[in-house]
């Protein structure tokens, strides 16, 4: 393990809003691009590529991704970004559109280099204090928890907050979110995410080549992919398929290699689809360690995760489940290679 390096583990923030005006069906998508750039500037990242469809806009950032739906914003950033600094300006811009915050969700794994993180990300307690200071009073239900694994330096951190009406919205929400974190990537596969020496292909072109070479475009063949390759290494992609997003971020350097895969599905999806998607995503990297956090209103959907991962030679080592306001059930599972690679 290196002494220091780029932090692959992301911080993820999801904010949900509601509005009274039926004409504003574009909702948060009406926040103009310059305002979004201001928010990202506060966080310390910029947009490198983007695509949108009738349901939402997806932006690939210099340090991860941003998804803007009419009533929901999801930002996921890695490195030493100060993600929580986006909370206040986003609430401000939404307020100008007569949209009120009704749910907030913040999740992350454990940092590989926790001492390199700036305030308020120095530790989870500081993060929770900071979020709470920036949340409006109508979010009356709040919960913060650290979900453990066998390794004390490998946990899943969750904070959610919701308003009094979240019970009513719950029955309408059939979403399942899978957040997959992979470390100790197969070295040979990770090398595909380094730009070839002498190759003058830049950004999105180099990204497209990596997408095709690694089989990432095969994970969901019907998704439109927006990809980007960084100098001298690193890769990010957003996939859009109807109203569903998927996103992959890769830090390929040996010693602190990391890859994340996140996607949203439905509790009504065919088992086969969920299993196949997760399996293909993990196979791109053949990691030695995988953790998967499954968030939904279903208490069973997490069972599909083990069915996807175990056939790949990874054994489920730990399991933790908890309930959170609005988010529902969060299940945190960790897997490591059944036989350790030398």
């Amino acid at each position, binding site marked *: 393990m290196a002494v220091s390096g780029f932090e692959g583990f992301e911080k993820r923030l999801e904010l949900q809003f509601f509005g009274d005006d039926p004409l504003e069906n574009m909702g948060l998508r009406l926040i103009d691009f310059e305002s979004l750039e201001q928010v990202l500037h506060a966080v*310390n990242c910029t947009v490198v*590529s*983007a*695509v949108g*469809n009738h349901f939402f*806009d997806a932006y690939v950032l210099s340090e991860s991704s941003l998804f803007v739906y009419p009533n929901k914003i999801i930002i996921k950033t890695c490195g030493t970004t100060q993600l929580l600094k986006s909370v206040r300006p986003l609430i401000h811009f939404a307020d100008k559109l007569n949209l009120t915050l009704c749910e907030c969700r913040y999740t992350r794994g454990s940092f590989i280099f926790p001492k390199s993180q700036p305030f308020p990300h120095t530790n989870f307690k500081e993060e929770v204090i900071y979020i709470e200071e920036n949340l409006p009073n109508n979010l009356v239900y709040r919960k913060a928890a650290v979900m453990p694994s066998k390794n004390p330096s490998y946990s899943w951190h969750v904070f959610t907050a919701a308003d009094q009406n979240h019970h009513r919205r719950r029955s309408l929400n059939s979403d399942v979110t899978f957040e997959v974190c992979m470390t100790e990537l197969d070295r040979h596969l990770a090398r595909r995410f380094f730009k070839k020496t002498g190759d003058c292909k830049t950004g*999105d072109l180099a990204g*497209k080549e990596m997408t095709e070479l690694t089989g990432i475009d095969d994970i969901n063949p019907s998704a439109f992919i927006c990809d980007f390759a960084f100098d001298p290494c690193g890769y990010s992609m957003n996939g859009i398929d109807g109203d569903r997003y998927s996103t992959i971020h890769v830090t390929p350097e040996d010693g602190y290699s990391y890859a994340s895969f996140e996607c949203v599905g439905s509790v009504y999806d065919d088992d086969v689809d969920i299993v196949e998607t997760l399996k293909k995503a993990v196979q791109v990297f053949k990691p030695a360690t995988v953790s998967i956090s499954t968030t939904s209103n279903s208490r069973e959907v997490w069972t599909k995760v083990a069915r996807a991962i175990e056939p790949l030679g990874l054994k489920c080592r730990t399991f933790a489940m908890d309930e959170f306001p609005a988010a529902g059930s969060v299940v945190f599972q960790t897997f490591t290679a059944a036989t350790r690679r030398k």
Partner: protein
Amino acid sequence: MGSVLASFFNGPNSAEEDSSSSSLLQTFHSAPRWQLHFDSVKETSKLMVIDFSASWCGPCKLMEPALSAMADKFSDVEFAKLDVDQLPDVAQEFGAQAMPTFVLLKKGKEVDRVVGAKKDELEKKIDKYRCC
């Protein structure tokens, strides 16, 4: 890295209406006018690039400065901007579901397309198809 990337996309503002900053990046609001233009370019050997976008689409705005710059640089190429809400039939005909979508045509036939605000890929493809 941040400031380099910011200037990567920022450029001179391009007007949204018919009178755009570059005479070779025309915006079409009516189907008959579009059809006339399409038919006339079809008769030539020029490469045509159609930008399918929408007024509410953030990613489209991201691409606008880069597209204007390309229209200035590749003066032998015809650039046309179509709003998917104003010309939904054309958008459907070309299967533009994600935005921005850039369709490259020669003699009225599609030769390639780029989906998303991908400056490098679009520039490479325009360069590839503009001559032969």
